[in-house]
């Protein structure tokens, strides 16, 4: 169980200086255990600041963050425990690798938890498997790997703590399409296999439409939409006003509908679009 409850969260950058900027303003959200949540929003909307509160890296200037009903800032130990329970993978995490071998780097988190060596070893293997790090790479230096492989090692380094909540900040940024697909597949498999909560920050509407149970939309430090992908993506005018787009399948379906093709509402992935168009054809509608 790892339920996150955030209430009246507020965070201000540069408080007390002339450069004060409100990054998070009055955010209330409860994320039940096991949900797959997507966070979308324009650059600078407060997404990254928000997720750094979930494991206590940033201390809010107002409001509380509760994990399973207890405030994570109640004591130093509680904050440290939250770091292990809420695993946070930063943007471009490959730049944090530092050990001589990948295995040692993945073991950094579990080592900080004070686990016995055999347990750490098991976790490294398990995490490498979940993140798709090939076994022969474990004894190599992380600096010798390709960019995509390094990122997998970094993600494994967080998964190895067996967090009940896995938070990823744009894990596919800067990867080639095959790399994106396979990392997302790994994340989905991890979610399915462990039942952990997954929170994914992304700019890619196509990928989040396929994966998430729920979407949170941030704009200018506020949580402006909260609902299933169906609910959020049906409000495409509101999204456009926030400089966000709907998934390409939804956009294509909308354009076809305007030209008289009787497609149903609620199409977010290319697979759904394909199926809907085939059904139309079979029924003899004009396509």
């Amino acid at each position: 169980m790892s339920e996150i409850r955030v209430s009246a969260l507020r965070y201000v950058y540069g408080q007390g200086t002339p450069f004060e900027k409100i990054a998070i303003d009055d955010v209330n959200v409860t994320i039940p255990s096991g949900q797959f949540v997507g966070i979308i929003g324009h650059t600078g909307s407060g997404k990254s600041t928000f997720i750094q509160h979930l494991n206590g890296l940033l201390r809010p200037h107002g409001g509380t963050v509760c994990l399973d009903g207890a405030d994570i800032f109640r004591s130093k130990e509680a904050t440290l425990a939250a770091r292990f329970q809420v695993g946070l993978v930063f943007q471009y995490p490959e730049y944090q690798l530092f050990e001589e071998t990948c295995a040692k780097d993945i073991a950094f988190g579990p080592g900080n938890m004070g686990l016995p060596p055999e347990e750490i070893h098991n976790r490294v293997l398990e995490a490498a498997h979940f993140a798709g790090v090939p076994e022969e790479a474990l004894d190599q230096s992380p600096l010798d790997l390709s960019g995509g492989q390094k990122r997998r090692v970094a993600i494994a380094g967080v998964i190895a703590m067996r967090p009940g909540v896995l938070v990823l900040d744009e894990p596919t940024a800067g990867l080639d399409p095959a790399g994106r697909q396979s990392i997302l597949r790994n994340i989905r498999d991890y979610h399915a296999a462990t039942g952990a909560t997954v929170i994914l920050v992304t700019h890619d509407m196509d990928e989040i439409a396929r994966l998430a149970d729920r979407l949170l939309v941030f704009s200018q430090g506020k949580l402006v939409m909260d609902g299933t992908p169906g609910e959020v993506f049906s409000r495409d005018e509101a999204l456009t006003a926030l400089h966000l787009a709907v998934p390409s399948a939804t956009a294509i379906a909308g354009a076809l509908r305007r030209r008289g093709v009787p497609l149903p509402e609620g199409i977010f992935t290319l697979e759904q679009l394909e199926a809907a168009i085939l059904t139309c054809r079979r029924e003899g509608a004009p396509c």
Partner: protein
Amino acid sequence: MLKDITLGQYFPGNTIVHRLDPRTKLLLTLLYIVTLFVANEAPASYLVLLAALGGMIALSRIPPRTMLRGLKPLVIIIAFTAVLNIFYTPGTPIFTLGFLHPTWEGLAHAAFMMLRILMLVCGTFLLTYTTSPIALTDGLEQMLSPLKKVRFPVHELSMIMSIALRFIPILVEETDKIMSAQKARGADFETGGLLKRARAMVPLLVPLFVSAFRRADELAVAMECRCYHGGEGRTRLKQLHMSGRDAGAFLAGAALLAGLIALRRLGL
């Protein structure tokens, strides 16, 4: 936290002090330091010096509080110097406590010494607060350019300085990011003994060095792509020009020095 460090921080502005040629400001800072050491240790001389410094700060419109904040890290050094001076200057003792015998002369000397260090630091702060790092290195390059005759790599040196200055905020930001990432994996940078803390720095320093080298590499490639080949035949976007303002500033500086020499002769 890390973002709060001020290291030669520049406060943009458009006052007469900001608009002076960086070479003028560099030379005047040198002149000012000489003046500080020429000045007689007497109230009249120091009042003149304080008035001159106060005038310059007022002209630059740098808030005095900002100036004082910059002095904070130096408090210990200044206090230490002052205390040493109180005890080690020969003269009439104030009281004697074992081997300690502070003297009145020492007290006076310490007070002047403190003022001198404070004025010295404030004066140099004024230079870095009102001159952008780029202007400063440009000015330095121009001033050192006669050394090119003896094949001293003046341009390269000033380019290295500009790049180093430019990289400070980038590396600070990078440090912050890596620290957060390692903290997210349970790293602890704040507690433990010296050895434990030193060891805790490894997960921070290794990625930081790797990324610094990567950035340096990328920058070198980017510079070569734009055909950078050193200082020879290079023109500048911003030409440095001395103007009447600068002449006036030199006159004022010279007047200050002359005045303090005169005061010293008079024993004031």
